[in-house]
């Protein structure tokens, strides 16, 4: 019996460290639903108004402005023309602007995009899935995403002014 005392001690303490470490570690790394600047933007696959699928990965290598919006949200509507102008201005330099609609009917989204003359890709979220994935708390929320896929800045609420957007876009282009 005595011979096994030491190994038994080691085995039990190893178990404690393993199980305890896991349990305590879990409490530290509880995945928070809130994204922060510096983190990688979560991957998604969504369809646009014409039924074509877009993945976040498709935009890797280009600076990206990802705008969550809904027709029911006045500031979202107000900032849409500014986003469109920025898109037109910076498109040539490689800027991507993508709008993700907040799980509304395709018809409302289409007629809204048409009446506002939006021609950057508008993707349709379904059942608030991607919205939840990105931990949205307020509308609109805009993610400024670097070419490597990490978030540079999150603008919560709105409307954002054209100069506000432009400053951040310029920063996206700085190496």
């Amino acid at each position, binding site marked *: 019996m005595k011979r096994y*005392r030491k190994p038994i001690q080691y085995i039990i303490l190893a178990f*404690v460290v393993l199980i305890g470490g*896991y*349990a305590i570690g*879990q409490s530290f790394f509880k995945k928070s639903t809130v994204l922060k600047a510096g983190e990688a933007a979560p991957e998604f696959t*969504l369809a646009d108004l014409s039924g074509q699928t877009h993945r976040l990965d498709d935009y890797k290598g280009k600076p990206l402005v990802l705008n969550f919006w809904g027709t029911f949200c006045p500031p979202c509507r107000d900032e849409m023309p500014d986003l469109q102008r920025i898109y037109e201005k910076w498109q040539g330099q490689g800027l991507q602007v993508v709008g993700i609609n907040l799980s509304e*009917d395709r018809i409302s989204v289409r007629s809204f995009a048409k009446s506002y003359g939006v021609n950057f890709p508008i993707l*349709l979220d379904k059942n608030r899935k991607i919205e939840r994935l990105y931990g949205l708390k307020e509308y609109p929320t805009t993610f400024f995403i670097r070419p490597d896929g990490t978030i540079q800045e999150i603008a919560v609420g709105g409307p954002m002014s054209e100069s506000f957007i432009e400053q951040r876009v310029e920063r996206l282009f700085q190496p």
Partner: protein
Amino acid sequence: MFQNTKCECGHQNPTGTVLCEACGNPLVDDLPPDSPLEMRYDGAARRSQKQNPDLIDRVWNFFSSVKVAVWLIVITLIGAALGTIYPQESSFVNLDDPAQYYKDTYGTWGMIYHFLGLSRTYESWWFIGLLVMIGTSLVICSLDRVLPLYKALSKQQVRKHLNFLRRQQTVYETTLQTEPAEWVEKFARELKRKRYRVWIDRKDGMALLAEKNRFSRWGPYINHIGLIVFLLAVLARAVPAWHMDKYVSLDEGQIKQIPDTPYYVKNEKFTVEFYSDDELPERLKGTLRPKLYETKATLYTCTADCDDPVKDPVLVPVKQHNIQVNSPLSYKGLKLYQYNYEERIRLISVKPMLVDKTNNRSYGPFELPMTDPPLTYKAGPYTLKLSDVYPDFGLDEQNRPMTKSRDPNNPAFVFVVTGPGLAAGGEMYIYFPMPSAENKKLQDQLNESFRKLGSNSGRFAFEVNGMENVSFSQYTSTLNVRVDRAMPYIWVGAAISMIGLVMGFYWQHRRIWLRIDGRALTLGAHTNKNTYGIRAEVAAALGRTGIAVEPKALDNRRNKR
């Protein structure tokens, strides 16, 4: 501390031994001379007690201490109590900004409470750390005591030291009037009748050990095994697949995905019933007393195209259940409980007619679902194209139509009607399916303004004939979705723990030693509880062998006082 561990009987004991493993003679000098002996673990040394402990031994010894265990439990209890001062964050269905909520609801103390992390006490690292430490302490304390105790009890020496016998709680000394060997035989028979196991010293038959219910000594350790299973099960809840606690709100007829699962649930119908007045006692008459909350629910699983953004997921129904309070829908560890409901009328679909006001003829009906409506409809010779949908109709600052939210609270549809006798571009009409005076007015105003703009001729209107053409949801039902795979283990742990407690509480380990030196009989008896019981047994057995003695007289403590 240097300690001579060799007993006068010649037995070499391990460090920390209180009573000689062989003869039971006390080895610790500073025991008060007259008091009964400390019989914990039969005086055996705790397993890990060593003369030169290294680091691992020190850690081990820390957890091996009962004093430490008690403090850990006290601290955990205080921590757990602190967690109950204000509601925990996890008890809210929807809490977007907990810091703000605690500040607004509970003032400064709430702010401090949240700042200290007490609003998440039971998930905090320190609380889980305490549980892990208690678990460790349980394992190590038990192991360090149960093994020496087991060893001590399985190789007991029959002949004990006089000091050991005289310092038990139950003691009797006398001079035998009869033949000692014969008396021992007789006494042994009496004890056997009381279901004692009896050993008589093989050498000369002048010493005896009788013992019963030894198994009750293992009760605490079995209890501890149960607690460890229980604790491990609680910690296992941290594994994401083992535990889920979510809420899904569904209108009648609505189908929704249960987040992070391949399952979808549909609310076919929600029913709430209240007791009628004749069913209620006098004092409750006239009050609303719920009798039934029921959600007729169907659970689906997604078999294909689950994450395809273009195609709709392929759903297969797997279970149907009428969910009532305490009667959840249960499927493969997933449980859906009735949690809440709200009366909120929402249209599911309507079947309106297209009415031509010029000749009062109506066409249709056509089916118009409120969510994901198709783009085109046929009504008689006319084609209706949906050009805009406002699920929750409102007007913005510039009096343009907009939707106030994405919930179908008051939907409005804009159609372009084309067909015989109409301009090529068609005519545009707005339609509010929700019947209300306000909607009627709005609809008329808006269609009139369209007419002024030249978008329509005012020829058409929409009409729903009778309630059979309207399907609506009256209630929104909220279901609580739970997965708790740890629960069976928690029950098993609790059951083992209860078995251990019963073993330890309802039986007592009783031992009687005696030795005869010449004609002098010395008897000592020990039990871990119920000393009255053992004194009565000893007195009765002595009485049957011709030694009349009052049970009370056997009480060693009483005699000394």
